[in-house]
């Protein structure tokens, strides 16, 4: 009787710890899901005299990708972002996070520019409003300007295929 108990408790512990090991402590659920995308108006990376505001995208489903030229994981995820942009389901807007123009522009030239446009968040202030803590981060924002999905860290092909693409389709259907 008591041996059954001990084995049972031990097995329960093993299951609990095994599940715990597969979780990623870096993936903190964002409180921003379901909330309006924080407002910003920033200069464009390519043309600093022009500005972009998140409200310019109202009425469109779009992807916001936070990246920087100093961020190696951003380079890893770049082909995934590029493929997403090529799919043409939704425009990808870049948010260049705490970067220098003279580094960011050559980076885009070298690795290709999948972005419709890139806004420049020089001091990272807008990043804080979006709860950014580990570049790259990717957001899906709907026509009403509500954040529907957030991916922390490099967007994997799996996440793009299984989460982002179906969500984009659904949001576009929903109108």
């Amino acid at each position, binding site marked *: 009787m008591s041996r059954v108990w001990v084995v049972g408790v031990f097995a329960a512990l093993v299951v609990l710890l095994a599940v715990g090991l597969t979780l990623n*402590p*870096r993936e*903190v*659920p964002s*409180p*921003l899901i379901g909330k309006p995308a924080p407002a910003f108006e920033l200069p464009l990376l390519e043309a600093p005299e022009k500005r972009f505001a998140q409200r310019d995208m109202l009425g469109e489903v779009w992807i916001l990708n936070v990246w920087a030229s100093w961020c190696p994981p951003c380079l890893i995820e770049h082909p995934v972002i590029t493929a997403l942009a090529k799919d043409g389901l939704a425009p990808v807007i870049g948010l260049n996070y705490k970067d220098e123009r003279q580094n960011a522009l050559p980076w885009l030239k070298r690795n290709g520019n999948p972005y419709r446009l890139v806004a420049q968040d020089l001091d990272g*202030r807008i990043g*804080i409003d979006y709860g950014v803590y*580990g570049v790259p981060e990717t957001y899906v924002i709907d026509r009403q300007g509500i954040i529907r999905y957030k991916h922390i860290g490099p967007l994997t092909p799996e996440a793009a295929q299984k989460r982002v693409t179906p969500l984009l389709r659904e949001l576009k259907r929903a109108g």
Partner: protein
Amino acid sequence: MRASLVALAFAAAAAMAQGGDAELDKRATALEHELRCLVCQNQTIAESNAPLAVDLRQQIREQMAKGASDQDVIDYMVARYGDFVLYRPPFKATTVALWVGPFVLLALGALLAWRRVARRRAPQVELSAAERERAHKLLQ
């Protein structure tokens, strides 16, 4: 140790930058010890030197200088990073297991231990006179 020195140096620098507002600095530093740095998750933003922690410390001080209360700053942080940013998680429906769990486990352990001890004590059977006689003989 080094982290606290750096924090101290930073606090001093920030105090100087703001015209030596010691009161505000004390409040900000106290609050920074309550907030988690999301880059290095086992450190508070007071201890961490991650660029984000530096930015957030600056944010906190700017907001306080503009008259934000401690609660205003906490709300600002939770709105962006969630409850995870609080080193002391709030007591609510999603965190009940976190707060109550250890006490439930403690009670469960105490119950099991008590049952085990009680069972060990159990075989104190009253002997009849004849049995006592027999035991007495066996022991001699």
